[in-house]
């Protein structure tokens, strides 16, 4: 970049930075594409993939949500063309009691999980920042291990930890002194407690599973943010007599706000569409219907016999609309903090 002479800062006529007239590379003999076309040619394969595998299906999903697509449209011998049914699928979705229970499960789960994930993640991030070098490295490697575990494995591990008969959680709860267990949970014997039978306790286990797997990302991001705050600020605050929480509220939090807003939105988006962990914890397609969230309900309507893909698509559209609204906030935040221009 051309340097503007220091004198120019004093006002007056700034000597024009030589930005616009950089020397252009010499023209090459015919090398195929005209220069203006090159970026488009480079983008082409990626755009084709995105259009064919993400945009077109999105359009098709909306289209299907207005159609009846079932067994008769699927049979190998003279399948019927999909039949346009207008808003019938949507009417069916909103009339179903499953809609309200799945929506409630989706939203409440996301809110609770995001709150816990962010709280725990931030605390651990702050802790990592305070810990000594060696200890901090050890803890980072530890939480990385939790983060790295594939969702399928994570679900299965927690299913095992919460196993009714030989699970370690029931063993640990039985260790509690009876009066304490009585006081906190109203019972003292946890032997054989089945955690994965009814919706409420399924979601309890699911929250633990997802928080466990996602707090490391928050912690490491917060740590990265903290490291970028100049230590002079903290020294100045100390001189001015600020302590602990005040410093966090007045310095740390405002400076990390952009990080937090991105983290919140990312977490909400991730937790809104949780599928794999719920599917595995709750026992696949045989899970209790009250435990459906929107993703699972859509999947089960569309693929469990008798398949009703139109209905499944309508549920998926509802979920997507909610997510795109949240995404809008995220995109705005990113555009604000980063140069996409």
């Amino acid at each position, binding site marked *: 970049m051309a340097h503007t002479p220091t004198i120019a800062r004093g006002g007056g006529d700034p000597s024009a930075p030589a930005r616009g007239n950089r020397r252009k590379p010499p023209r090459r003999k015919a090398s195929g594409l005209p220069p203006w076309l090159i970026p488009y040619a480079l983008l082409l394969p990626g755009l084709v993939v995105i259009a064919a595998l993400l945009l077109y299906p999105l359009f*098709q999903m909306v289209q299907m949500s207005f159609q009846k697509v079932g067994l008769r449209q699927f049979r190998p011998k003279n399948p019927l063309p999909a039949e346009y049914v207008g808003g019938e699928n949507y009417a069916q979705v909103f009339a179903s009691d499953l809609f309200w229970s799945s929506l409630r499960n989706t939203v409440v789960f996301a809110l609770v999980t995001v709150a816990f994930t962010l709280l725990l993640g931030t605390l651990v991030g702050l802790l990592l920042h305070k810990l000594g070098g060696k200890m901090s490295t050890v803890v980072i490697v530890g939480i990385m291990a939790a983060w790295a575990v594939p969702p399928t494995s994570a679900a299965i591990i927690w299913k095992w930890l919460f196993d009714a008969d030989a699970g370690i959680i029931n063993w640990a709860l039985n260790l509690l002194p009876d009066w304490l267990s009585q006081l906190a949970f109203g019972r003292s014997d946890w032997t054989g407690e089945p955690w994965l039978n009814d919706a409420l306790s399924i979601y309890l286990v699911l929250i633990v599973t997802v928080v466990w797997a996602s707090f490391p990302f928050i912690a490491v991001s917060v740590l990265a943010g903290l490291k970028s705050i100049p230590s002079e600020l903290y020294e100045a605050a100390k001189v001015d007599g600020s302590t602990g929480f005040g410093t966090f509220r007045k310095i740390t939090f405002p400076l990390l706000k952009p990080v937090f807003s991105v983290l919140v939105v990312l977490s909400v988006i991730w937790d809104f569409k949780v599928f794999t962990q719920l599917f595995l914890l709750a026992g696949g397609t045989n899970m209790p219907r009250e435990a459906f969230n929107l993703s699972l309900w859509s999947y089960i309507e569309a693929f469990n016999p008798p398949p009703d893909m139109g209905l499944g698509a309508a549920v998926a559209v509802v979920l997507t609309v909610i997510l795109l609204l949240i995404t809008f906030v995220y995109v705005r935040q990113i555009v604000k903090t980063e140069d996409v221009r």
Partner: protein
Amino acid sequence: MSPLARKRLGRIALNSAGVAVFLFAVFPVYWMVATSFKPNDEIFTTDFVPIPLSPTLDHVERVFTKGVAGHSIWEYLLNSAIVAIGAVTIGAVFALLAATAVARFRFRFRTSFLILLLIVQMVPAEALLLPLFLMVRRLGLYDQLLGLIVINIGLTLPFSVWMLRTFVAAVPKDLEEAAWIDGASRFTTFWKVLFPLVAPGLVATSIFAFITTWNEFVFALTLLNDSGNFTMPRALSFFIGQRSTDWGGIMAASTLMTIPVLVFFLLVQRRMVSGLVAGAVKG
């Protein structure tokens, strides 16, 4: 209390909190590994058996020889590797081209393209499941690894481009211009100058895509039917549905699936954070 004692107490409190976090994070992983080496009577007990007292390789051996759903776990690991490597290789080429375009050129629709990338990343895969399922069937790719490869390219590409463009932008433009002035062709400039400098970023991005593909479950669940084609996550879910009490075997299989990801993860952990929070952390 003297300031010194208070300070020491504070350090002890911090370190214990560190230990607690470490245990919470690591214990479940440890328990998975430990269970896969325990004999059955140490697994199915209401007592706490902290370590395998008489460690055994029975479970590991069983998932390899007897396998799951009639196939050795090797086959599933191999299928997963084929899908992941296939999707990552092709995806990396596409991502590199697109990232070069957005990081090196100014053109119309550049901003629109970047915003498009952000938005499509957020579309839930479950929502695309239905149309993609029908598309894959129409193309005759149902129950084939190739179908899954194609889908995973689509799923990972937006993020790969997004992450890779920062690496391309970080390479000083002067280098390319110098090569250009020395008479190198466009292709030579790209291949001999830009590519070697972007290679580390390309590796990091590819590892990220590899992990995503390796872990992918929903599409493997929907698009694969014959157990011989299962990828690891799909095989694992089949396993737990079919022999739900064989915890030794399930944990052994789960451990085997986790190991490659764990190794890759520790390799790219730092880049991963910067890629995900892209720019929000300005330092």
